C-alpha cells in the first residue's frame, strides 16, 4: 500500500475553519489504534482491573469484505478503519464483558486559542454474517467521545447509539451527562483510578433500558439508521459532534440526515485534572456487541476540526 493522494473532503463533511486532522484510511491507520490501559504496575500489569481492559477487539484496516457480496470497499477508496468485537456480551445491567467492545483512539492535543472542536466521520456498521437471517439486533451500541483536559477539568463529551439491549430494539441516541456517582459507585464497587465521569463508555451503573449513570436520551423519536436488508450490505452515513471548549458544553450533534439539539448547558461530568495530560484531545470511537456475535463499526474517513477566538471574532463581525 502506498500513499497516493491527500484526502479531499466529500460533501458529507462540514468542518470548522481549521482542520486538525483529516484521516483517509486508504493512506494507512493514521495514528488510530487500540484503546488499552496503562501498563504501569508490577510485571507491566494494567493499572486498573475492574474490567478486562486487555481483550477488546483490535482495530484494523478493512476492505469490508463479506462472504457472498465480496468486497464493499469504503466510502472513498478501498479501506476503512474497522472496529470489531469478539463474540461475547454481558447483560445490559452488568459491566462490559471481556472482548465485548472494540475501541479506536487517536491521541492529539489542543491547539492555541481553540474555542470549539468538531469530530466528523462517515460510518457503517454490521453484524458478522456467520449465520442465516438478519443480524441487525445483535449490536448493542456504538458511539464516539472525546477525552479532553484543560487547566481545570478532565471531561468526555460523547454520544452513543443504543441499537438493541438484550435483543430488544432501542434505536435511540444518548449523550454523556454529568454523574453524581461516588468513585466506588462509578468503579463497580472499587475505589479505582477512574474519577466519576471518566471513561463513561465502561463505568457507571448500567440500566436495563440501555441508559447508564452518565447518559441522557435525546428528545424525539427513535432513529433507524441504515442497516440495509442483509448483513453484507453497508451504507456510509455521516456522524458529527461539536463541543464548546470554553463553556465545556455540547454545541451540536447529527447522525445521518437527523440533527439533534441539546438542552441548554448540557455537558459531561467535569472531573478533576489528571497529571501529565493537560491539553489532551483524544477522539475515541467504540462499538459494543449485544450477544454471541461479532459486530463491526467501519469509519471512512475521520475529520477533526476546530475554531479559534480569531475565527469566532470574524464570524461575529460578518
Amino acid at each position, binding site marked *: 500500500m502506498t500513499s497516493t493522494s491527500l484526502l479531499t473532503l466529500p460533501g458529507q463533511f462540514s468542518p470548522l475553519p481549521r482542520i486538525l486532522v483529516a484521516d483517509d484510511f486508504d493512506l494507512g491507520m493514521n495514528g488510530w489504534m487500540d484503546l488499552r490501559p496503562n501498563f504501569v504496575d508490577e510485571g507491566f500489569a494494567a493499572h486498573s482491573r475492574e474490567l478486562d481492559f486487555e481483550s477488546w477487539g483490535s482495530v*484494523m484496516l478493512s476492505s469490508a469484505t463479506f462472504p457472498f457480496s465480496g468486497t464493499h470497499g469504503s466510502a472513498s477508496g478501498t479501506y476503512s478503519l474497522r472496529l470489531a468485537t469478539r463474540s461475547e456480551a454481558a447483560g445490559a445491567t452488568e459491566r462490559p464483558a471481556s472482548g465485548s467492545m472494540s475501541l479506536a483512539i487517536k491521541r492529539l492535543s489542543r491547539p492555541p486559542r481553540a474555542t470549539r472542536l468538531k469530530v466528523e466521520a462517515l460510518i457503517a456498521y454490521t453484524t458478522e454474517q456467520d449465520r442465516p437471517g438478519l443480524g441487525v439486533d445483535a449490536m448493542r451500541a456504538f458511539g464516539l467521545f472525546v477525552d479532553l483536559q484543560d487547566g481545570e477539568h478532565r471531561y468526555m463529551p460523547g454520544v452513543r447509539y443504543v441499537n438493541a439491549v438484550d435483543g430488544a430494539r432501542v434505536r435511540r441516541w444518548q449523550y454523556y451527562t454529568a454523574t453524581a456517582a461516588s468513585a466506588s459507585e462509578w468503579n463497580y464497587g472499587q475505589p479505582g483510578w477512574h474519577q466519576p465521569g471518566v471513561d463513561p463508555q465502561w463505568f457507571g451503573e448500567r440500566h436495563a433500558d440501555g441508559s447508564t449513570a452518565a447518559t441522557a436520551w435525546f428528545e424525539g423519536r427513535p432513529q433507524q439508521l441504515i442497516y440495509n436488508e442483509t448483513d453484507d450490505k453497508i451504507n456510509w452515513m455521516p456522524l458529527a459532534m461539536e463541543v464548546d471548549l470554553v463553556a465545556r458544553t455540547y454545541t451540536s450533534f447529527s447522525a445521518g440526515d437527523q440533527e439533534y439539539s441539546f438542552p441548554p448547558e448540557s455537558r459531561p461530568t467535569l472531573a478533576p485534572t489528571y497529571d501529565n495530560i493537560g491539553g489532551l484531545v483524544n477522539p475515541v470511537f467504540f462499538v459494543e456487541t449485544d450477544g454471541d456475535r461479532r459486530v463491526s463499526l467501519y469509519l471512512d474517513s475521520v475529520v477533526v476540526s476546530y475554531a479559534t477566538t480569531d475565527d469566532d471574532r470574524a464570524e461575529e463581525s460578518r
Partner: protein
Amino acid sequence: MKQFYTAVTDLRRRVTGGFTTFPYEAGWADEATYFVTIEESSAGALGVQLAVQISADGIRWHDEGTTMTVAPDSAEFVRLTHFGGFLRLAGSMESADGGPDASAVVTVRLALKG
C-alpha cells in the same frame, strides 16, 4: 514509503485446549510476521501448537500450512506472504498427561507491512 502496523490481537490471554486468535484483516499488507509469546504455563504444560489460517471472508478458515510450536516461557515467530485478506492462528495446548487442564498465557503480535 510502505505502510507498517503491529496489532496486538491477543494480549495476555489465558488459553486451554483448542483456541483461535482474534481474526485480523490484512489485505493491504504484502507481508506479515506473527510473534507469539507464552507465559505463566501451568504445571504439565508442554507448550502451544499453532497453525496459521487464512480466509476469504473472515468466517470460513483454511490451514495455510505454516505451523509453529512455542514452548513454555518462550517466544517464536513465523513469516508469511500471499495470505489473502484475513489471518488468524488456530492453537492447541499440549500437556504431559494429555488432559484438558493445562493452560498458558498467550500474547500474539501481528506485524504487517506493505
